[in-house]
């Protein structure tokens, strides 16, 4: 299997540094060993106590809890998408599974090759871009450029859908029966295996 430079294998993935900042060593709640610059050996005016272990730095223990008051706060970092993120063209977005190159992290380095362009895959690509931009706009409602692009793709998707339905039958219940017969129940259904299409 092809290897991915980001996640070469499960084991290595687990050895990546944790997304927590703070000075080493940090121990568990009962280990009471915390490095803490600037406060070594201080006793506190309150009922705190100083814990000193051989060869380690010491730190005040808060009387109200187990954690020392100088324990570094964890800083989890979740990257938040910026406005004006780079985007793939729709067909590439569909095959890569994301509209955004910045979020494109292939599983085991496996990358889908661009799929054959058919009226259906073109429609899928446009609708996928609409889904992607829609979710992006949920959390970035003020990004006007993205909103304009969303409207553009939504319009193109509507046109592509109408063109597809005129030729191959209804995709939505509301478009059924246009040809005088009840074509909603006609094969193929989406789960049917088709050689082409």
């Amino acid at each position, binding site marked *: 299997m092809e290897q991915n430079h980001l996640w070469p294998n499960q084991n290595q993935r687990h050895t990546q540094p944790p997304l927590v900042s703070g000075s080493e060593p940090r121990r568990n709640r009962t280990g009471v060993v915390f490095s803490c610059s600037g406060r070594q050996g201080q006793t506190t005016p309150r009922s705190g106590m100083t814990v000193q272990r051989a060869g380690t730095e010491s730190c005040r223990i808060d009387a109200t809890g187990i954690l020392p008051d100088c324990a570094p706060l964890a800083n989890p970092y979740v990257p938040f998408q910026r406005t004006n993120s780079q985007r793939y063209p729709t067909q590439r977005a569909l095959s890569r599974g994301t509209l955004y190159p910045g979020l494109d992290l292939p599983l085991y380095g496996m990358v889908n090759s661009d799929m054959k362009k058919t009226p259906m895959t073109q429609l899928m690509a446009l609708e996928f871009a609409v889904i992607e931009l829609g979710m992006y706009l949920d959390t970035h409602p003020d990004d006007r450029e993205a909103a304009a692009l969303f409207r553009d793709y939504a319009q193109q998707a509507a046109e592509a859908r109408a063109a597809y339905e005129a030729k191959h039958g209804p995709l939505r*219940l509301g478009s059924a029966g246009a040809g005088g017969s009840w074509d909603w129940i006609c094969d193929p259904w989406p789960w049917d295996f088709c050689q082409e299409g």
Partner: protein
Amino acid sequence: MFVYEKKLEYPIRIRNTNPKLAAMIISQYGGSDGELGASLSYLSQRFSMPYPELKGLLTDIGTEELGHLEMVGTIVHQLTRCINEADLHTGPFGPYFVDHAAGVYPTAASGWPYNAASMAVKGDPMADLCEDLAADAAIISGQHKKARLNSVELSRAFLQSVCQRRIDILPWL
């Protein structure tokens, strides 16, 4: 209200029957980290979500998960077309076949039927979002295992695609 669209989100065309693989992929349908659980979590959590951005996001993600559910069901369906006698006697698909034949049933590969005990709706925005993050991590880990176990190109392409979708939503939660 939901409106059905008679198409998949991503094309699935599996030429070769492979019930052995279907017996593993079914976990993605109704397993503890499957698409059914994912769509139910998002679509249920949104009722108590106070923020407009996240009401929208949970609705849209939950809806897309329903599309993924349909895709996984399609994969299992196509992998079990024209199964032969030998598949039932020699492979891991046998026990599934006894109960469901070539039907698509929401169950884990290990035989546990879908159970809402594997998801959480706590009515607390932070708890629910953290739950979603944890669930996504579990799903990605599952995709890795499935990708290692299977060798069918089309399904691998799909797993890659769905895994990618998981990663997308992480920063938004």
